[in-house]
């Protein structure tokens, strides 16, 4: 025996390898395939009906075949908690629900007040990726996802495409779970999520012409509202309108392309901004916080008079026109800030002061009764330079 063992010793690694194969191979060969045991969820919808939660899940089923066909199923279940609704969905499906490939989370209107608990559950218990995008909707998440699913398209891809576009033109970055928690755990406890709606008219048109070309209009089923839902301490407090979102975007370097609307004597003029540079500085003088915003806006001299009808190229902006544009921008910023003050937000401004003037800012905060009111005490000095070609 001893002789045998000493002969085998040089091959110990090989023997161990064979042993591991013997240990794991039969066990794994006897198992059914992963796809028949687990349901891969790409999009999750959550609604609240009185005291019950309703889960709507879109699952992806990989199918073997010559052509690559993506099959998406819609599953819905209800329970007095998310976990019980999930359990029911698993029972109905006959598969274990996995969230490793979930990219989007759609939260219906009623469930939005429980958003922290919902996200907490999915992130901690179900290891949902922090990079998943959260979308809020005025409708129910079930209705939203059902209509999306009817298009026989990949729903998460549709949402992703929209979010990618919006992250460059509306939100300055994708509204992910990480972003939400980052705001929620900040001193002001303010966070934002994206808003999408369902376009009922387009859906009707779609159903009428279902026999024909469906792909072109399939994207229109979702209404890109351009709105943003604002949460304070985990509760939805306000829905920022597209104009208010635009007003806040003057603070963002990344959003550089947009139209500026100027109204005078009942006439609407649109100027196209094709670039901008943002310089933000903060200082505290005599316990008074001052936020200096210096905007260098590049107008590409395109003026559209009476929008949609006339298209006129202008060589140079007159002083009067420049003043009107500046005034319009200032008004937009003011209206947006007023709303943020009203609902006690302002994370980015708070952070900027905290980073750059920490000692003075802490002193200033100590002089306040409630730090949530800090934004109302800040003076915004806005300097705008309009640049020509």
């Amino acid at each position, binding site marked *: 025996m001893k002789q045998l063992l000493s002969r085998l010793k040089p091959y*110990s*690694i090989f023997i*161990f390898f064979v042993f*591991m194969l013997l*240990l*794991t191979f039969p066990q794994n060969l006897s198992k059914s395939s992963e796809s028949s045991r687990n349901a891969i969820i790409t999009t999750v919808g959550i609604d609240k009906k009185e005291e019950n939660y309703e889960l709507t899940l879109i699952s992806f089923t990989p199918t073997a075949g010559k052509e690559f066909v993506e099959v998406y199923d819609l599953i819905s279940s209800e329970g007095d908690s998310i976990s019980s609704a999930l359990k029911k969905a698993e029972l109905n499906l006959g598969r274990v629900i*996995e969230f*490793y490939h979930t*990219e989007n989370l759609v939260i219906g209107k009623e469930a939005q007040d429980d958003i922290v608990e919902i996200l907490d559950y999915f*992130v901690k218990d179900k*290891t949902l*990726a*922090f*990079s*998943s*995008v959260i979308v809020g909707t005025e409708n129910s998440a079930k209705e939203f996802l059902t209509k999306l699913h009817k298009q026989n398209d990949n729903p998460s891809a549709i949402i*992703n495409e929209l*979010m*990618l576009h919006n992250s460059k033109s509306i939100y300055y970055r*994708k509204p*992910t779970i*990480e972003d939400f*928690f*980052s705001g929620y*755990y*900040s001193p002001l406890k303010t966070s934002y999520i994206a808003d999408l709606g369902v376009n009922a008219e387009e859906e009707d048109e779609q159903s009428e012409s279902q026999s024909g070309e469906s792909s072109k209009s399939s994207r229109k089923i979702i209404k890109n509202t351009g709105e943003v839902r604002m949460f304070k301490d985990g509760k939805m407090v306000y829905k920022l309108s597209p104009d208010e979102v635009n007003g806040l975007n003057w603070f963002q370097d990344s959003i550089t392309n947009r139209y500026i609307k100027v109204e005078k004597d009942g006439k609407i003029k649109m100027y196209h901004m094709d670039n901008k540079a943002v310089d933000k500085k903060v200082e505290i003088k005599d316990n008074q916080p001052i936020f200096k915003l210096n905007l260098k806006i590049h107008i590409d001299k395109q003026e559209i008079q009476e929008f949609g009808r006339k298209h006129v190229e202008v060589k140079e902006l007159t002083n009067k026109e420049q003043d009107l544009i500046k005034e319009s921008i200032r008004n937009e910023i003011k209206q947006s800030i007023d709303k943020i003050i009203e609902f006690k937000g302002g994370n980015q401004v708070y*952070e900027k002061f*905290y*980073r750059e003037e*920490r000692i003075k800012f802490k002193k200033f905060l100590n002089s306040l009764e409630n730090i949530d009111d800090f934004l109302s005490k800040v003076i915004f000095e806005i300097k705008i330079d309009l640049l020509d070609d």
Partner: protein
Amino acid sequence: MKETITTRQTAIMASILLFANKILTLPSLLYEYAKGDVLLIFLMMFAIDIGVLFIFFALKKKYKDKSFFTLLSEKLTRPIAIIIYLSLLVYFFLEILVNYNVTGIYFKTQIYHNDEKIIFIVLTLAIFAVTAAGGFRGLGRTVEFFYYPIILGASICILISFFNFREPLVLFDSTAKSFFIGAFKHALTFGDSFILFLLMDKIQYDEKAKKKILCYVLITMGIVLLIVFMFLSIFQNTAFLHSSAISDIILLSPEIFSIGRLDIIAVTTVMFLTLCQISIYGYILSDLIKNIFPRISRNVCIFIVIVVFLLLYALVFNTADVVIDSARSWGIYLAIFTQYIVPVISSFFLIGKKKEAQT
């Protein structure tokens, strides 16, 4: 003939252990105490580690071929040396259990979504047994082989994480009390330089050794600090929610997430690291037993380590919470004694020589 490893292998071994338990859960756990100052805790503890390393250099220069156990026996008597080695034995069992549990959770989240404890434990013990039985030279060559893939993997993770970078972290944001409590409570995860003391008789030490070891150690410390810096800068308020620093820093971006399993780079790096770390800890544990009970053969020592590990795991430390709680309670005192007090005691052995020379 005594089995020895080259200076380069020694430097690599010291570097690989610097990663141990630091690039997964630690930044997140420390954030609760020190916020952005976690980076300063790392800097402070690394500075202490370098100090310990210098004690080792001086000791090795003076007692070239002596083992640490012999040195302790000669200077402090054999019973005291045995007591110190017994406490080291407990310390390294706790260290290996922390490592096993933290990486176990990581691999479960990333690869084995279903609870595959048996596979993980069999693999761990097999790696340990094979490398420990293979001898110290084999271990030296193994860590040497994996070093560059580890450094490459960690560097790629740092590089990708720059895409997620937003704003640098805010420093000096915690109180001195919470800062030092944080450092104190997680002392067990630092102090890795001490391991070289236990291997001092098995290391080839030439003139360039000091420079070489320091160079490797500083490079590794730089990489660890960069991972921690990126982690804290990316997550800031939510750092405490993320428990796998090296993976999380590359997975945040939705665009990167859509590429697919990009975290495979981080997973592979951690896999190589775990393999090396468990092998080193395993070898050291068997070596400690061999020193305490010199008549027992190496294979029996390995068997004892495996049995004790299994018993400890099955009966006491079967959940990560128990292990981490132990590391953050009584484990702290054990860690401070072994990592810092024992090297300081050893530094007194240096004074002795001068006196001897004078006499």
